[in-house]
């Protein structure tokens, strides 16, 4: 294995490999920065062109895209409150308030460095865990997965603690929205109102773009001025970006936790970067001594989000390379590339084609380093976007968002949905309902239903399956701990009753 690693390292001097990494990185950053597009579309578009290429070169291109899209996606999340990919949603919570304070450059520095460190952490873990992959995959059964989702839902609900009832209501609505569409589990259509568009339920990309990007545009357009409230604020240029890059190390615990969560969640097929992103952010907030700072432009919030969404890259490659089990859309396309190039994932890949394995691992690392340099170097320029008057930016972001929404499925109704979501999101903001709780309810609700049903089908209808497996018990204990800890903290914060009060 070490020999193959050295061969791979030596091969990186090959001009074709360098070109492949640059191509993959460029595509990844470009598709990551444009809201709604992301790595899956970039990989899909390049896939047919790689037919006939040397498989190693093709893998470097794919690795370049995998390693960079969510890093690139952090930039519009910070500067425009528009997550470039779904896994960048939590970056908007603190990154954008920082931009409004005129600290967009600092936030970019924080995000780029946290992303790079998260990726490096997960890739090292991937290399170390490859021999143990089978044990991990067998450990997570459907009931365990169900409890993991419940843990995520509870964590997010507590994340909106300042408005818990509204948070719960929004989360419940999110779960209900997730039930719309054809249920492959039961083979029936639910709440589709006779519309073919709703067969597959509500698409997440238009929903998220509408909620987070377009509704924000409505707010800013009605307010005028620039995104950074004080247009004369100096974003600090390169010095401020480097300040952010160095500052990451002040948040070691958040960085490590985000990297671990990203890696572990990434390794669980189906969970994906968005789940890792939300879980990392809410857990960081939960564990913080100053949770009230989260959502106000807190640097730790950016670190929590960006370290996890990139750390998922290493984790998600684990089941793909070892079992050929793709955990998300990116990995499905990578599997498609394997098939196209006659590569067989699994034991054959790990024994006979270690050159491919290392091409992917080294490609992700090289692309991440390159992206970090691009973003740190170009961040000062990118950060100036927030000083441009909104009247110039708004049409650009709107068009970009609509292109992104349309490009995913070439369905004009997705654009209409994004507009509808923008109006609903705007109204919810004004009424004080947390949008993010709705979205996480939506993301996790469907998975929770599927895993719950699977568990009962496996046990033949017996509920004991949820309480007898070791991983389930550990997760249940974690849930109880989280609930208990939150209640304890709430009780400590509650004012002591005055004398005479019952």
């Amino acid at each position, binding site marked *: 294995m070490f020999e193959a690693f050295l061969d791979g390292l030596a091969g990186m001097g090959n001009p074709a490999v360098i070109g492949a990494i640059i191509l993959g990185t460029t595509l990844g950053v470009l598709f990551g920065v444009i809201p709604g597009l992301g790595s899956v579309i970039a990989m899909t578009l390049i896939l047919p062109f790689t037919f006939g290429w040397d498989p190693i070169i093709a893998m470097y291109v794919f690795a370049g895209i995998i390693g960079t899209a969510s890093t690139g996606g952090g930039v519009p999340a910070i500067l425009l409150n528009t997550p470039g990919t779904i896994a960048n949603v939590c970056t908007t919570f603190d990154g954008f308030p920082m931009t409004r304070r005129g600290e967009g450059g600092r936030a970019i520095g924080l995000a780029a460095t946290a992303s790079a460190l998260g990726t490096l952490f997960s890739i090292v873990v991937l290399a170390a865990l490859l021999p143990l992959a089978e044990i991990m995959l067998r450990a*997570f059964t459907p009931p365990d997965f169900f409890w993991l989702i419940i843990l995520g839902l509870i964590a997010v609900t507590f994340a909106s603690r300042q408005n818990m009832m509204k948070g719960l209501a929004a989360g419940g609505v999110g779960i209900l929205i997730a039930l719309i569409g*054809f249920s492959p589990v039961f083979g029936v259509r639910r709440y589709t109102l006779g519309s073919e568009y709703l067969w597959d339920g509500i698409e997440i990309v238009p929903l998220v773009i509408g909620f987070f990007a377009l509704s924000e545009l409505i707010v800013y357009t009605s307010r005028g001025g620039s995104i950074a409230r004080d247009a004369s604020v100096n974003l600090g240029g390169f010095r401020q970006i480097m300040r952010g890059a160095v500052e990451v190390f002040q948040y070691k615990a958040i960085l490590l936790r985000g990297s671990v969560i990203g890696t572990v969640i990434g390794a669980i097929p189906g969970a994906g970067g968005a789940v890792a992103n939300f879980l990392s952010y809410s857990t960081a907030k939960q564990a913080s001594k100053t949770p009230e700072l989260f959502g106000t432009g807190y640097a730790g919030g950016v670190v929590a989000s960006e370290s996890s969404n990139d750390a998922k890259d290493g984790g998600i490659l684990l089941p793909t390379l070892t079992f050929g089990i793709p955990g998300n859309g990116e990995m*499905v396309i990578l599997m498609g590339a394997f098939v196209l190039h006659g590569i067989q994932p699994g034991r054959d890949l790990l024994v006979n084609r270690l050159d491919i394995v290392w091409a992917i691992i080294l490609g992700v690392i090289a692309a991440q380093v390159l992206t970090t340099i691009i973003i740190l170097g170009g961040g000062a320029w990118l950060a100036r976007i927030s000083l441009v008057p909104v009247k110039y930016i708004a049409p650009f972001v709107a068009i970009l968002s609509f292109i992104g929404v349309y490009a995913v499925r070439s369905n004009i109704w997705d654009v209409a949905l994004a507009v509808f979501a923008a109006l609903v999101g705007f109204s919810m903001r004004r009424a004080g309902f947390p949008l993010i709780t709705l979205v996480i309810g939506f993301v996790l609700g469907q998975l929770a239903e599927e895993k719950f049903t699977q568990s009962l089908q496996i046990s033949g209808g017996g509920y004991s399956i949820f309480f007898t497996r070791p991983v389930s018990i550990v997760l249940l204990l974690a849930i109880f701990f989280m609930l208990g800890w939150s209640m304890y903290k709430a009780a400590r914060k509650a004012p002591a009753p005055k004398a005479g009060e019952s």
Partner: protein
Amino acid sequence: MARIGKIGRFGRLMLLAGALAAIAAFGVSCGDDEPDFPTRDVEWFVGFGAGGGFDTASRIIAEKMSDDLGVNVVVRNIEGGGGRRAVQEIARSDPDGHAISIMNMPNQITAERLDPEDVDFGELSWVGRAVIQTYGLYTAAANDFNTPQDLQGMPDVRFCLSGLAGHSFLVASVTTEVMNIAWNPVTGYRGQETQAGLLRGDCELALGPIAGSTLTAVQGPDFKVLWMYSSERFGPVPDAPTVDELGFPELGGSKFANNGLVAAAPGTPDDILQILADAFDSALQDADVIAGINNAGMGVDRLTPDETAEVVEGMDGIVSEYIDTVRQKSQAQ
């Protein structure tokens, strides 16, 4: 020049007759002309996401067809409803040949029967068969059962399936009825999640096309194929017996194979359909196309438009025969 003006009556008649003959000949030759097709890019709908088997095959074939047709054949993924959105799209397209779609059959017929959407598969203009994938039943290598008889002795065998409306559910329902096996579905397993489910013990059996990454998996040491739904041994997995060999020929042939059939909109004129079919057939004879499809774990077994329509009719008959069994099991869940 003056001589030209002095043509006699006979000469004028001859000129008139010649002109009429020329017009007639021109008219006839216009009637024999190839139809004005294609006049723009041809769209190829795929009802599934990019990267899957049908998508890969479509992109390989479309590229070669582009050369023959002289326009781009553009693959467009119209995901939704397990491939049904693409079927709807082609059923509603203009019958001008500029849109075609690959569809997984007989899966789409089963879905239509269980949840009708007024698609008449007999009305579609069939171009041909792109790929064929033979179904097989497999399990984790660690399991100690191998034959239908072993399974008959078990209380409730669990099948990892995608859902209660797909072709795999139909094949599982029919198999267990014919072989007298007590069973239960465990749903929500798509793609290679199925293999993880088998290894974890979520279920004992899985079935589906033995192609792509599933083929790779069953050729490895972690899984074994118990039988193939064919009458002849399946080349890539030669040790697996056929259902015919096990004494269940009613499940054999290619009845339960997964076919990637290509159709144009209902009412597409025959001459346009023929141009599409010729380009399609020519692509399927190209060595690179065949190699690409085989690399993706699928087979090429060409059919003419008429033969394809007959295959669809046969599939319709099989689904009709077993749809009540499927419905009963589905409702029992």
